[in-house]
Structures are given as structure tokens and as C-alpha cells.
């Protein structure tokens, strides 16, 4: 029986994930969605973290705002829309949950239904 401490387990997991991701990139014909980024170039967190955890950030900020009135925009949904909404050919902003737009493109790809926009504004003010 091999005794593994916490560090070596973490190391093994990291190695496994590296192998997994390198296998993933080796497959060239995986179709990933083309996401229009709006004017967002530099996100509030690293992109890998945002892809995986953006809803956690938004949810945390949501409670801060609703219950404590903290309206800083670092992790606010309004902040996402400000940066990532794209303009149409007429120069007007397109709803961020419209087909082919920032939020919707990825959520369609991942087959995840978003419920934010039954209530929240879909274009910047």
C-alpha cells in the first residue's frame, strides 16, 4: 500500500488533468462556439476561471447587492453586459441573450438554460 500525502495527490490530479487537456487539444475537429466578445478584452478574472465559475461570482454579488446594497460592478451582471454586449449593424446594442450573442452562444453550446434575463436588462443602459 502506497501512502500518499495531500501534496502528492494534488500533483497526480494535476498531471492527470494536463494529460486530459493535452488529449483534448490534440483532437482538432472539436467544434467550439464562436463567441462575440463585445468590447470585453480583459475580464475581471482570468478567462479559465470565468468560464467555469462566472455564475458563482454573479450569485455572490447578487446577494451582496440585494441585501447589502453593495453596488460595485466588479462581479455584477450589469458589468458583464456593459462589456460583452455587441452592437448590430444599426449601431444599437443587441440583447446579450439573443441567438448568437455572448451569453446565449455558450449556453446553447453547453445546453444550459439561463434564467437571468427574464428579469434583468439585456442591453447596457
Amino acid at each position: 500500500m502506497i501512502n500518499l500525502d495531500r501534496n502528492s495527490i494534488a500533483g497526480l490530479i494535476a498531471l492527470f488533468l494536463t494529460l486530459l487537456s493535452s488529449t483534448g487539444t490534440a483532437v482538432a475537429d472539436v467544434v467550439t462556439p464562436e463567441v462575440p466578445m463585445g468590447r470585453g478584452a480583459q475580464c475581471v478574472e482570468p478567462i479559465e476561471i470565468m468560464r467555469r465559475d462566472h455564475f458563482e461570482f454573479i450569485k455572490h454579488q447578487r446577494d451582496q447587492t440585494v441585501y447589502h446594497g453593495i453596488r460595485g460592478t466588479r462581479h455584477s451582471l450589469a458589468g458583464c453586459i456593459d462589456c460583452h454586449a455587441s452592437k448590430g449593424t444599426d449601431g444599437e446594442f443587441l440583447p446579450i441573450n439573443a441567438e448568437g450573442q455572448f451569453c446565449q452562444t455558450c449556453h446553447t453550446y453547453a445546453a444550459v438554460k439561463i434564467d437571468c434575463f427574464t428579469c434583468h436588462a439585456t442591453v447596457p443602459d
Partner: protein
Amino acid sequence: MSCKPMKKDESAALAQHRRTFFTQAAAGVSLMALAPGVRLVELAMANSEDSPPSNDKRWGLLVDTAKCESGCDECVSACNSEHGLSGHGRPETDAQWIRKVDLKDEQTGHELSIPILCQHCEDPPCVDVCPTGASFRRADGIVLVDKHICIGCRYCMMACPFQARSFIHEDLTGQKTHSPRGKGTVESCTLCVHRVDEDQQPACVEACRAAGHDALVFGDLEDAAGPLASLSSKTATRELRPDLKLNTGVRYTSF
């Protein structure tokens, strides 16, 4: 209280902590000595942009019914445009956060026109009955709905003695960024919490002032020197339905 002996590093940490505390306290005293009073006022007025509201404040509204003009609905239209409320021409179910009500004393013929809105009670019946905890009262007295957890049961609408709440029956589009609203949830006057958090006045109060009536005074009920508390201490004010002992944040005067 336990008195177990401290380890050496714990005691060092505590000493460090004490040192920091005294340094900071000394800095605070010197600051107060430099500008007595001024600093304290600044702290009390601190913007809540990045700090939660505290119960040192209680936001409220005083309606001077003598100044409120019959037929004027500037406050109602200001509220509608501030929050993007638009109806479907069905007054019984359309969202209504503030309404003008005309009253007549049948005995004397005396007439009144007053705005009715969420009274921001200290003991709100809507909060009592909410099964999910969506109806809540913020530390500074503003009664709100957390629409993320509202299930649209409408118990609060039945519990509210002022019929201040509305239910959204249909899909909405074009909501304002600062005022999210959606089908299946209950809503009511937020005392323009998004503006209050930025040290501004509610939209109805500004509109009433702009129309030259100045019948609405917004302020902190706990701040004796503020406009609301100082006015309330000089004139007789009353709550709607005082028999319910709700201690409302919205009060009326001159009737």
C-alpha cells in the same frame, strides 16, 4: 472565562494585536482632535456603495397632504419611468408601486388627495407571511423583495394592509438595469434603493419637488438634525392604520 496559560507565540501575537490597536486608536484620537465633529459627520454620511446599510439609519418619507395637489400624478409618472413600469391597460392587475388616492370626509366634505405606496413598516406583515424569505427588511428600514427566491405565491399581497404590492403576470422586456422585474414575482416600491445607495433621493420625491409642490420629504428618521426627523418632531404626523402597530416609515401630516 477560561484562563489557560498562553503559548509564547500566541502571547506575542496578542501583544502585536494590542500594539496595532493602540496605534490605530491614537491615530483616531489625533484625527478627531484635528477636526472635531467634522470627521464624525463624514463617517455618518459615508456612501454605502461598498459597505452594507446599518440600522443606525432608518429611511422614511413624510407626505404633507396639504401640499399634495388633487389631480397631480407627477410622483406616479416619475416612479413608472424610473422603474420602467408599463401597464397593459388593465388597472386591476397592472403593476402599481405608488398611486394617488382621493379621500372625502362625508361628514364635513373635506377632501384629500394622497399618494399611497409601500409604507416600509418596521414590522412588515409581508415579511411575516413570506414562506421563502424573499420579502425582507433591509437594515436601514427599506422593505424589499428578493425576486431570486420569490415563488410568486402572493401571500404578501394578501397580508399587506395597504395593497402596496403588485404581481407580474406576463413576460416583460426592456427592463431597466437598476430595476430588474420579471414574470411570476411580486414587487413594490423599493424607496428607489438604487438611488438611496448612491446618496440620491427617490424619483417621486424629486418629481414632486420639480413640480413645485414639495409635498414629499425623504430622509433618515434616526437623524435628529436631518430634514425628515426635524420636521416630524415639529409637526403632528400619523401612520396609516395605526391600529396595526406596524410603525411605518412613510408618514402623513396635515390631516
